[in-house]
Structures are given as C-alpha cells and as structure tokens.
C-alpha cells in the first residue's frame, strides 16, 4: 500500500466539529431585571452618633488590617481609644447580629484597634486639606471642643483652644475615673490632635468679653465648655460643711488627691456622675449607697455601669428622695421620702411622694450628683432676635457685631455623652466650613447630604467626597441578610479584673484582648450592606458575567451576557447588591 493510501484509511471520520465559542451570543438581551452593586448603610453606623463606618472597620479587622481599621474610625472620630472605653455603644443595640445570636462587641474592637495603634505608635494617614487663612477659637477642651478643633484642622483651619483648667480633656480628664479611662490613653489621643497644629492654651479662662473681642482675631468661635455648675437640691442642709459636690470629688480623685472615706456614704442622684462617685468612694474605703428618686430602669446612668457598681458592692435605694440633711454625731442624718410611680409615660417614670412614708439614713458623708448646668449665662445660645440655626447637636448664632458663634457639646447636643460631643464637634466643623465657603443659607442642606442613615449621624468622609458617598442610605435590616453564610458563634467575652481586684485601687477594669480574639469577633460581623470581597457573586454566576475589575468595587457585571437571573443578588450574604 502506498503512503497516501495508508493516510487515507486513518483520516478522521467525517463528524461535525465546533470551530467557535458561544461568545457571539449576547445573552444580555434576554435580561429583564438588572443586578448591580449597591452598597447600603449598616444599622450600627446609623445608630453611632459619630456615624463611624463600623461595618467597614470590622471587615478590615477581620482581614488583619488594624491600621486601616483605625484610620477608618479616625475619619469620623478623633477618640477611638477613649470611645472604645467610655461610649455607651448604641451601635451594639442596633446590630443585626443581635437577632441571630449576639451583637458584635463593637466597642471592644474599637478599643482594640486604637490600643494596637498606640502600642506600635502608628501615624495615621488621613485625608486633610491644606492649611488656609481663617482662624477659629474653641472654648473648652472637652470632647466636643477637641473634636471641633480636630475636624476643623483637617478642613484646613487654624484653631486656638482655650481651657480654664491646667490640662486639656475636660470631662474626659476630670469627670471619668481612671478605672474606666486611664489618663495616658487620653493624652495619647490629645497629642494626635495637637500634631495637626491645634494650639491648646491651658489655664486660660474665657469671659463674656472674649466673645465681643473675638471678631478681630477669629472668623468664628466654638463654645463647648460643658455643664460644669452643680444643680442644687433645694432642701435644707444641703450647704452644710462636708456635703460635697460630685464632679469636684471626681476631679480630686483624678488629680491623685485621695481622701480617706469610711462608713456609709450617701450619693444623691442617678446619672453617670452619681455612679462614678459611688464607685470611687467604694475604692476609697466607704460603703456607698445611691439614693435615687425614680427606679433603676429610669436612671440616666449607663446600665452596664450601674450593673458593675452593684456588683462591686454599691447599694441602690430606688424611689427615695432626700427631704433634709442635718448634722449627726456620726456625720449626717438624711430624712428620705418614699416615692411612688405616678405615670410611666415618657422615657422616664413620673413619680410623686407616697404620703406618710419616710425613713432616716445616717451616713458619714453626702455627695450631691443630681445634674449640672452651664456655669455662666453667655455659655448658652441666646434667646431673642439673633439669627440662629439649630442643628441636631449644635446651634449656630450670628451675634450682633460679633463673630459667628457655634454652641456645641452638652450646651446643644441631643444627649449628654462623649460620642454626642464628638458628633457635635463634627457637625460644627462642617457647618463652619460651609458657612465660610458658601454662606449661612447653604449650611443646612450641605449637612443633610452627609447623613448616615435617616437619623442625625454625620460622616466627615462623605463631607469630603470619599467612597462612602456611594452608599445607599437604606439601612439594612436583619431579614435582608443571607444567614446561610453565617454560623452561630458566641460573642467575645470581655476579660475583666475580678470584683475583688477592682475595688482595691483605680486600675482599668476592662482588660486587653488578643489580635486572634479580635479577628474572630470581627469575622462574626455581617458587614451589613458593605462588600467584603467574598466573591460569591462571581462564583455562582451561571453565565460567567461577573468579572474582576480594578474599579473600587473590585468587580463588574458584564451586561453583554448577564441574563438577569439574580443569583448574585440573593447569594450576596450582606445585601450589598440590588436587582431592579
């Protein structure tokens, strides 16, 4: 057989063979619904007065990117180490994971990333405008004043902060005991604010005249000097020698000037000051009893602080109010009136005296901690004809012949808390910047563009035109999470000093957690509405129509081929996509 004949016998049989791919079929034309990436707002960030981007922070912690997580918090809050310790964390009450098993320990993770930055002395790399001309005066170096100065400095303003005390920090330094907030933590955060060029002038008390003269030197003044004057009880004997005020006592403890206490000590009031005073008194050897006219659940103090105080041995007398204080051989004699709940309407129960029910209480010392008010009248927004704009946590006033004045912190915030003070400082900075650049009329609408969710929380990242502007303001609810992708896992248990160790001295109660524990806790986070690059959309696409891309999202949908089945949207565990 010839060579040719052999090759003929083994030539392939005549069967049809494909010669091209299916890529010429643009199956996108079948589509009648269109998926797209649609990042939304997490409930925690909407509940955070400072509008922190918590879902993203937890995503970064879970990836081990602690510095980036810290910087993400610093976008919105100059005090992560402080707030991680002292904030009442409304974020955790809003956490969707709470409907699944337990909320994420957000405050513990905030403290962890800040402590990690402190430990390695990291320098934050955060968006900042170049320094411009206008100077702004800030009265008070508490959390609102320092936050205002921090955000204004980032917006390019030069700030002078005036503080009447010898050291900056306001309530953070003088009102919060060391077992909740060690002073070196506060100093580290304040140093970072100083490093932005903020000048803090201590021992510099500002008077009403200052406002009149400020126009020459300052474009505007922020007043955030807090509520520092104690409110009177209005009962006989409250001015007796030795009946002390709560805040000065806390200041004394902070200054290291520790008085000896013994026996029963009465603390009158139900706020955080009352609880802190009683816990400090306990550490100094006394047996404190808190006397409060309403019930425990009506106390303005944070619930977890009350619980810890009771655990440590503080006694609580609910529904009793003092009628008079008289001297007694063992100290003081208090006559207490029994109160009864008259109505449960409103956030706190209304109470009235229960006729004929009184009792006596003999104590070695009495502390009054029933509330505070501004020290001087000029520290409050004026009533009258001055042009005024009330925002959620600040009040802007154009004084006649004076500079623009912004009242913030406790003077104007929705609630008296450190994080509301930070929110107030941020709102003030945005308002002042908008006022300086676009005038009075632009302020309200400009600020409303920076809202995180439907409430008053604001984002500086959004004000500066950052990535968060892309987020849909819709707040993700639990039913929108695909829980198939999450396993039940217990919440991180905060390590603490033992009760016996706590009452011995003023050491910080909450202990550090390891990076491994922090990552595990952050991995529990649903990252509601925020893409964490899990890649499910790309993995499950039956049409290979989701592609990697170098855009900020990391991937894109190829609408030439996407048939609109919607699998990507349903399989997104965190509702960061939409089908429409």
């Amino acid at each position, binding site marked *: 057989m010839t060579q040719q004949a052999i090759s003929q016998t083994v030539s392939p049989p005549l069967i*049809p*063979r*494909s*010669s*091209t*791919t*299916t*890529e*010429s*079929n*643009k*199956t996108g034309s*079948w*589509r009648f619904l269109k998926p797209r990436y649609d990042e939304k707002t997490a409930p925690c960030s909407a509940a955070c007065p400072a509008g922190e981007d918590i879902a993203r922070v937890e995503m970064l912690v879970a990836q081990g990117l602690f510095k980036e997580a810290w910087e993400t918090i610093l976008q919105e809050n100059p005090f992560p180490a402080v707030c991680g310790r002292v904030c009442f964390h409304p974020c955790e009450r809003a956490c969707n994971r709470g409907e699944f098993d337990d909320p994420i320990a957000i405050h513990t993770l905030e403290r962890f990333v800040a402590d990690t930055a402190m430990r390695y002395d990291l320098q934050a790399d955060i968006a900042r405008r170049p320094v411009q001309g206008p100077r702004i005066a800030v009265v008070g170096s508490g959390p609102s004043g320092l936050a205002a100065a921090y955000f204004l400095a980032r917006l390019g303003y030069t700030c002078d902060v005036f503080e009447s005390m010898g050291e900056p920090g306001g309530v953070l330094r003088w009102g919060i005991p060391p077992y909740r907030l060690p002073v070196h933590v506060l100093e580290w955060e304040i140093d970072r604010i100083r490093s932005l060029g903020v000048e803090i002038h201590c021992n510099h008390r500002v008077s009403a005249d200052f406002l009149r003269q400020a126009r020459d030197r300052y474009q505007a003044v922020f007043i955030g000097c807090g509520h520092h004057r104690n409110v009177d009880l209005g009962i006989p004997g409250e001015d007796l020698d030795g009946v002390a005020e709560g805040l000065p006592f806390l200041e004394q403890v902070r200054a290291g000037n520790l008085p000896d206490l013994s026996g029963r000590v009465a603390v009158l009031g139900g706020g955080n000051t009352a609880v802190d005073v009683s816990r400090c008194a306990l550490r100094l050897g006394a047996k404190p009893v808190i006397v409060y006219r309403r019930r425990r659940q009506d106390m303005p103090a944070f619930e977890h602080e009350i619980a810890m105080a009771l655990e440590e041995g503080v006694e609580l007398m609910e529904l009793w109010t003092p009628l008079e204080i008289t001297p007694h051989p063992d100290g003081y004699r208090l006559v207490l009136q029994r109160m009864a709940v008259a109505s449960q309407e409103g956030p706190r129960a209304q109470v009235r005296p229960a006729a004929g029910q009184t009792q006596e209480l003999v104590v070695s010392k009495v502390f009054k901690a029933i509330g505070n008010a501004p020290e001087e009248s000029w520290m409050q927004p004026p009533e009258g004809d001055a042009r005024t704009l009330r925002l959620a946590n600040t009040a802007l006033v154009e004084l006649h012949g004076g500079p623009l004045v912004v009242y913030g912190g406790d003077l104007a915030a929705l609630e008296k808390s450190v994080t509301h003070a930070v929110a107030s400082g941020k709102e003030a900075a945005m308002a002042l910047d908008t006022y300086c650049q676009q005038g009075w009329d632009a302020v309200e609408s400009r600020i409303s563009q920076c809202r995180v969710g439907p409430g008053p929380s604001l984002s500086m990242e959004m004000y500066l035109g950052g990535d968060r502007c892309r987020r849909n303001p819709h707040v993700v609810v639990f039913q929108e999470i695909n829980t*198939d992708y999450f396993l039940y896992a217990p919440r991180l248990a905060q390590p603490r000093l033992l009760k016996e160790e706590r009452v011995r001295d003023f050491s910080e109660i909450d202990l550090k957690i390891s990076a491994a524990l922090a990552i595990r806790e952050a991995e529990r986070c649903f990252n509601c509405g925020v893409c964490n690059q899990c*890649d499910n959309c790309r*993995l*499950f696409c*039956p*049409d*290979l*129509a989701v592609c990697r891309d170098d855009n900020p999202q990391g991937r894109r949908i*190829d609408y*030439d*081929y996407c*048939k*609109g*089945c*919607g*699998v990507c*949207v*349903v*399989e997104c565990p965190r509702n960061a996509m939409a*089908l429409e």
Partner: protein
Amino acid sequence: MELNVLDRDYMCSGHVGCPGCGAAIAMRFLLKALGEKTMMVIPACCWSIIAGPYPQSTLKVPVLHTAFETGGAVASGLRAALDTKGDTETTVVTWAGDGGTFDIGFQALSGAVERNEDFIYVCYDNEAYMNTGVQRSSSTPYGAWTTTTPGQEWKRLRKKNIVEALVAHRIPYAATASIAFPEDLVRKVQKAKSIKGSRFLHIYASCPTGWRIPSEMSIKIARMAVQTNIFPLYEVENGVRYTINYMPKGYLVREYFKLQGRFKHLTDDDLEQIQEMVNEDWELLLRKAGVAMSAAGTVA
C-alpha cells in the same frame, strides 16, 4: 484544594442555558476542579443544547456529543482510545442528565462500571426531562408536578436512589454534591480525579424553568435540599465506606417544598408523609455510615 481552583474557568459566556440554570453552575465548578486535561462525553440532555448550536461550543475542553443511551459505552471507548495512544493524563468524563443516567443510559452505565472502566460519570440531576419540556423521569421526586404527571396526577412514586444503585456495583468512589456547596463539590471532583476505575458523582442542579421557581432562588433551593436531608451530601468508597459530609441543622422539608411551584398542590398531610420518607431515608443512610442517630438530629 489546589490554590486558585475557584479562580479558573473552562467555560465561556454566551451559552444558552436558562437564567439561573443550576446545570450551568455545576459544569463551571466541575471544570474548575478538573482543569483542561479533560474530555467530555455528553449524551442527550439539557447540556446538549446549553453547549451552543453548531459550530459553537461554550466549553474550552473537547466534547463528544452522543446518543441518549450511550454515555457509559462512549466513555469506555474514549478511554480505550486514549490508552492506546498512551495518554493516561487526560480524564474522561461523561456528563449526563438524570434521564440519561437513571433511565435511558442506565444499561450502558451499569455495564461500564461493572467492568470498572476508568472514567468519571457525572449525573447532573434536575429531576425530570427538562430539555424536552419537563417530562417525569425515575429521578422525579415523590410529590412533583411534571407535564406527564399533571394536576392531581402528580407523581406518587419515590425517586430512584441512583447512588445506592451505583454503590451496589462496588465502584471505587461514589458521591453526592450540590451547587450550593462549591468547596465540597470541587473537593469531591478532585478526589474522584485522583482515583482509578469507575467513579460516580451525583450533582444536584436546580432548574428554575422546570421547577417553577424564581431564577434567583437556584442556589438557595439547592442549599435547602441539603439542609432538609432531601439531598444529603455523602461519599462512599469501594461500595462500603460511607462518609456523611454535612450534618443537618433541623430544617423541615416543608420549607423546601413551599418555595417551588412544582409542589404547590401538596397538602399538609402530603408534606407530613414526605417528611417521614425523608426521615426514613436519612436514618437508613446514618445506619450505613454507622453514625448514632441521636447525635445526628433527625427532624421529628
């Protein structure tokens, strides 16, 4: 799992599977796991169409489209031809639907695995003849509507347990897998690839068109089939060694049934009865796997 297995693809866009097609997702995962040294045999089934009209092919590996009943035989021949050429590296895979496996192709399949032919047979199961218009097969589950079991004539016979039929041949490896559990699926394909002899994979592939479900629920429903014990994930080595890969968390079968149009006629009593059947099958599987029942959470 090999690094980046889930990143590679041997399939193109533009195929003509329905929106949300579970069989298309199953093929994507299979080829991610097998890689390019693969030859496919596809007897008549949905994928005969999905792969594209002549002269197109959506797959980046060679495919032999063959007659309905020949999946086992053609793969045996292809393997023999490759062996003759000295190519032992290429994996031969038959990719058949439930009709081509449970019914029409069963004889050729049984014959090939009895001879322990060296290939992987994959049945992607969408529980009816979907390509020709939703006719019932012996894989159609108890309670389902199809165009040949319409209205009140819904199927009142149980689904054939194909894995047990293959296990009875004492083949080296048989396993179930689901498109909702990609890591498990890819691991099983890679394990099958590493074994010589006949290997069988039964992959659950939801069908939005034939099951009357919204296309976006494709994966969700596949996941629920596993969570409810309707489609347990397990593997069997050498016909005797059972391993259960997913322990259920107590979902009721009614959750799975109520999402699908093909089951909408079922009453509470019917669902009760189906729950009992599922429990019975699951307990039987547990006994084979030697797992104590109390530890494995049978749904009461």
